[in-house]
């Protein structure tokens, strides 16, 4: 069976005056139908750009320089703009981070939803409206007929994100790329939306890529997790394995910095230093400057190697091979 999405060696670059920024640098992964993949990384790690690259929505002068993105076997990097457009919103949908910004403030909600239906199917406005009402109901919006006639500013952030999600669901897509959709929402709303998204994927077999910087969100949601750092995947595997036995020091650092992961009263872990400047990446392992375990070997780029079945990490000194030193345990 072909994976819903198969990404191989994707490279997305942004030429700037000072050189080329390799925002996504040789990323490969796949998502199966009904699977939820958590894509985790800090700001600038290339996680959002990965999402936009799949949809072909990289703003020029950025471009996909190499690699392939296959959606149900169909190559997207070389697909015509028109073909991409017909997939976007219909087969592959995207949900954005900030619900305050994703809906056009001067257009009514019905305009914005109905145009999405009609962009892909020749249906009457009444039929499109009926579909919108149905979808809004399914994401938990009460009295959708009346709500459709409102403008975005008349909704709260959580409601707006539900509308954005409903818009993404209108065509029952095979793949949804969700770019930090709950970051701007408060925790109770976040919980509801996570629950609903998870249920949706299970029920409809929709594949979901959940992009986030928040490990705790992904921990309860995803089947698999992929950690990105400075444009590269540093660790990937089943969610339970990665959270319980992280192999890459960066992943470990991320887990350590989540409140609740450490014993009460203990200082949260901080990853020292800052992510490297994307224009000035160090040779070798990109995390070495911030890593307590780095040594001379780390001047060469480690490969993404399978340490346990299905669990890969890009590190010369994964934790299974090199257990914690007493000093590290103490910190």
């Amino acid at each position, binding site marked *: 069976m072909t994976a819903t999405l198969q990404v191989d060696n994707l490279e997305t670059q942004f030429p700037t005056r000072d050189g080329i920024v390799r925002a996504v640098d040789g990323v490969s992964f796949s998502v199966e139908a009904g699977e939820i993949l958590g894509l985790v990384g800090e700001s600038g790690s290339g996680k959002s750009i990965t999402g936009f690259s799949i*949809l072909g*929505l990289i703003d020029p002068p950025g471009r996909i320089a190499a690699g392939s993105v296959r959606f149900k076997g169909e190559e997207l990097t070389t697909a015509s703009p028109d073909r991409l*457009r*017909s*997939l*976007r*919103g*219909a087969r592959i*949908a*995207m949900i*954005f*981070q*900030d619900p305050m*910004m*994703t*809906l*056009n*403030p*001067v*257009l*009514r909600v019905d305009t*914005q939803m109905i*145009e*999405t239906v009609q*962009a*892909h199917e020749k249906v009457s406005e009444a039929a499109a409206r009926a579909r919108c009402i149905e979808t809004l109901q399914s994401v938990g919006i009460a009295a959708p007929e009346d709500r459709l006639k409102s*403008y975005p*500013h*008349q909704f709260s952030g959580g409601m707006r994100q539900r509308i*954005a999600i409903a*818009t993404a669901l209108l065509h029952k897509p095979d793949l949804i790329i969700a770019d930090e959709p709950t970051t701007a929402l408060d925790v109770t709303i976040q919980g509801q939306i996570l629950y609903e998204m998870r249920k949706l994927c299970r029920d409809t077999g929709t594949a979901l890529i959940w992009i986030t910087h928040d490990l705790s969100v992904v921990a309860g949601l995803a089947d698999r997790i992929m950690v990105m750092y400075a444009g590269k995947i540093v660790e990937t595997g089943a969610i339970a394995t990665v959270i319980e036995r992280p192999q890459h020091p960066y992943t470990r650092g991320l887990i350590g910095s989540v409140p609740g992961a450490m014993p009460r009263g203990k200082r949260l872990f901080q990853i020292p230093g800052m992510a490297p400047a994307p224009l000035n990446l160090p040779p070798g392992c990109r995390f070495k400057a911030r890593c307590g375990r780095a040594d001379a070997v780390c001047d060469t780029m480690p490969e993404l190697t399978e340490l346990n079945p299905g669990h890969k990490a890009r590190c010369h000194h994964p934790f299974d091979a090199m257990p914690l030193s007493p000093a590290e345990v103490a910190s």
Partner: protein
Amino acid sequence: MAVMSVLVFVGIYMIGDPLAILVSPEATELDREAIARSLGLDRPMWEQYLTFVLSALKGEFGKSFVFGQPAINLILERMPATLELALIATFFSVVIGVPLGLYAGLRHETVTARAIMAGSVLGFSLPNFWVGLMLIMVFAVQLGWLPASGRGPTMEVLGIHVSFLSLAGWKYLALPALTLGLSKCALIIRLARATAREVMLMDYVKFARAKGLNERRVIGVHILKNIMVPITTVTGLELGSLIAFAVITETIFSWPGMGKLLIDSIVHLDRPVVVAYLIVVVFLLVIISLIVDILYSVLDPRVRLGEAK
């Protein structure tokens, strides 16, 4: 309006004595006094002002010293010409300026976009009177295609004389409207470009694309509707200033509008006309900003107060 009427009244009173211009030098002192009395100019200033205000409230602005007709009639007679010129100039500056600015904003790295922007700098900085004179030089004198002055034949619609219904009228309109509209057009190009560049980076534009909408709908609906909000505001303000300050253009092209009347009246210190003119202009500005506010709420739902719940 009240404040303005005082300012103008006192200002003109202090500039000079209209009698010096109106009365021929050979007239006797008795003649002078007779004329002054008939025009009410022998009274002290505050009394003149009071009479003026009282009659103004009744809609009478006094008689022109020069023409001997009610000042307000003189102005209303000429207003259609100015309004027509200003509206047409504004209409074309929006119709041309918005698409060009939008293009320059969306494809800002292309040569065409740069050419548009360079052109808009010219349109912006060339002085009005110079443009007018150059247009006359080229189209009226050198090529002889278009008339250099006057309004030409007009047609009467609902009792108002207008030029834009006949081809001959358009010939007369073309040059002054172009002169007047050029800098406004440049302004709108720059505004449209700046807002388009801002709006196109918004998430909702990207989301619109992610929904699979075609470019025509993304640009024509999602982007355009957002940039029209600031453009409407500026256009409204500029329309007001076009009506009020079409003076230079009207003078160059001898366009029989309010602006030319104003200049003539100032030269003759024809106070009732000047005051009435300014009051009419202020009134128009108020009306225009009211229209802009209404348009605003049509374009941007966030300013609809009635629904703010």
